[in-house]
C-alpha cells in the first residue's frame, strides 16, 4: 500500500512539475521605466531602442516627443544657433526627412524643444552642447528646423537612476510532452 502511494506521488510530481525548471515563466504585459523615487517615467512596451538606450514615447498635443533613457539619465542632444554665443533662433539639424516633427532634449535640466518652423537651409554659427556649453564655430550652411522650448524640463520631473519594471501577465503554458 505504502509503495503504491509513493509511486502515485512520484507520478503526480513527474506529471505536474516542469520537465527541468524550478521556476515558472509568465508573459510580461508591461515594461515601464521608473525614476529613483519610483515615479513612472513612461511605458517602454513593447521593448524598443537598443545600444544602452530604452525609448520612452511622450507627446505634446499630437506631436511625438521621443526620449532616449539610460539608467543614469535622459539622452540629451544639442542645439545650433544662427548667431555666435548661442543667440538667435534655436535650431536642430534636420537631415532625416520630415516623417517626425523634430524635437530635442538639451542641457543639464533636459529641456524639451519642439519644432516650430519648416525645415530649410540655415547658417549655423554656434552650438549649445548636450551639457549646456556654448561653442562658437565657423559658419556652416545646412538643413535645420527652428525649435522652441515648451517649458518642460525632464530633469525637474524625474530623478535618475532609472530602472525598468515588468508586470506578469498570463502563465506561459508548458510544451506538451
Amino acid at each position: 500500500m505504502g509503495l503504491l502511494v509513493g509511486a502515485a506521488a512520484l507520478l503526480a510530481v513527474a506529471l505536474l512539475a516542469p520537465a527541468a525548471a524550478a521556476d515558472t515563466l509568465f508573459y510580461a504585459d508591461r515594461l515601464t521605466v521608473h525614476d529613483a523615487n519610483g515615479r513612472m517615467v513612461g511605458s517602454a512596451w513593447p521593448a524598443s531602442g537598443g545600444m544602452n538606450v530604452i525609448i520612452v514615447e511622450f507627446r505634446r498635443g499630437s506631436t511625438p516627443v521621443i526620449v532616449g533613457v539610460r539608467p543614469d539619465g535622459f539622452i540629451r542632444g544639442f542645439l545650433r544657433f544662427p548667431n555666435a554665443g548661442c543667440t538667435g533662433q534655436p535650431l536642430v539639424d534636420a537631415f532625416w526627412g520630415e516623417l517626425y516633427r523634430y524635437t530635442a532634449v538639451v542641457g543639464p535640466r533636459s529641456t524639451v524643444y519642439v519644432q516650430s518652423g519648416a525645415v530649410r537651409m540655415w547658417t549655423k554659427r554656434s552650438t549649445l552642447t548636450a551639457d549646456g556649453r556654448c561653442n562658437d564655430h565657423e559658419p556652416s550652411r545646412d538643413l535645420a528646423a527652428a525649435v522652441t522650448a515648451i517649458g518642460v524640463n525632464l530633469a525637474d520631473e524625474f530623478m535618475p537612476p532609472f530602472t525598468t519594471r515588468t508586470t506578469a501577465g498570463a502563465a506561459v503554458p508548458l510544451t506538451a510532452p
Partner: protein
Amino acid sequence: MTAGILFFVGVLLLAPAASAQGLFRSDALVLYDSTGKTVGTLSQPGNLEVVFRTGAGRTIFVVARAASLNGNANLYFSETGCSGSPFLTRADSGRQPSSHISGPRQTVHVQAGEFGRRRMQSALLADGRCVDSARTSDFARAVPAGIDLADYFTPPFQLRATPGEAIPTGAVAEPLDPTDRLVVYDANGKKVGATRADGVYAPAAAVVAVVTASGMTLLLTVDDSYLSGQAYFESTDCTGPPFIFDDGVGDHWANLVPVTTLVGPRRAVHAPSGNAATRTMSSVDYGSGECYILRNRIGIVGQTGRFVPLEPIGLELADYFTPPFTVRAGRGTRALPTPD
C-alpha cells in the same frame, strides 16, 4: 437580379484599382513558435526583444531569431572549463538584467548582482560548448533562472502581425482613436498603421506591420516621402524583371517574416520566385523615384553578386497610401509632464 448587379457593381467600385488582394492593419506583432504558441509581443521596428517575468519575480529579456531564442549577454566563468562562479557581461542593448540562454534545453541564466571589474577564464556559448577564454571586463554575478525555455517553446519561430481592420483603398481621412499611440499617416490624412519609435530608425523612418488578405505579414519601412524597398535590375533604367540581393534575403528581419520588397512607382509588393544565382545588376530602385546606376569598383556599369528573382503577389501599395508620410501621437501616448 437587380440586387445581384448592384452587389457586383459595389464590389467593383470597392475593389483596389490594381491590387488583387486586400490589406489589413495590425494590432500587434506577435512571435509564435512552431506549434502556434505565442512567445511574446514585439516592438515594430527591428528590435526583436521579447520580455518575460518568472515566478520568482525576475525579468528576462530574450532576443528572437528564427531558429532559437537568445539571451542579451554572454556567460563567463571565473575558472577554466566553465567551472567556478558564473558571470554575465553587460547586454549590448543596455537592458538590465542581463540574460544568457544556452544548450539544447535553452537554459536561462540571469543577472543577480551589480556590475564590477572582474577577470574571467572561460565562456559558455549559446550552443552549449565551453571555451577557455580569459577576459577582464565588467561582469555581474549570474544565477540559473530555473527556467529551460525548451519546456515552453519549440523552434523555429515566426513573426506574424495580427490582422485588424481592413484598410480602405483611395483617399480616406481617418482620425486618431482614443487608444492610439504613434500612428503613421499619409498625405490624405489616412492611417498607414501603428509604429513604435526606435533609436535606430526614428526620425528617418518608421516600420509599420500590415497583413495581406492571404495572411502574409508585411513590415513596411516608411520614409517621409516614400515606402522604402529595394529592387535590382539587369537594365540601366530600372526596367525589366526585378531582383533582390541574396544577402538581403538571408537577413530579412532575422528570417522571422516572409521576404518581400516593393517595386516601381506603384510600390508593388514582390516576393522571391526562384533560387539565388550569380547575376550582374546595372540599376537599383529604393522607392524614392530615383533610379541609380550601379557601377563596380573601377567605374564600369554593373555589379555582380547573388540575386533572387521576384514576382508580384497582387498588391500595389499605391492603391492604399499616398506620400508624404508623417507620424502623429494619439492619447495612448503619455503626455509630457505639465510645467508647474
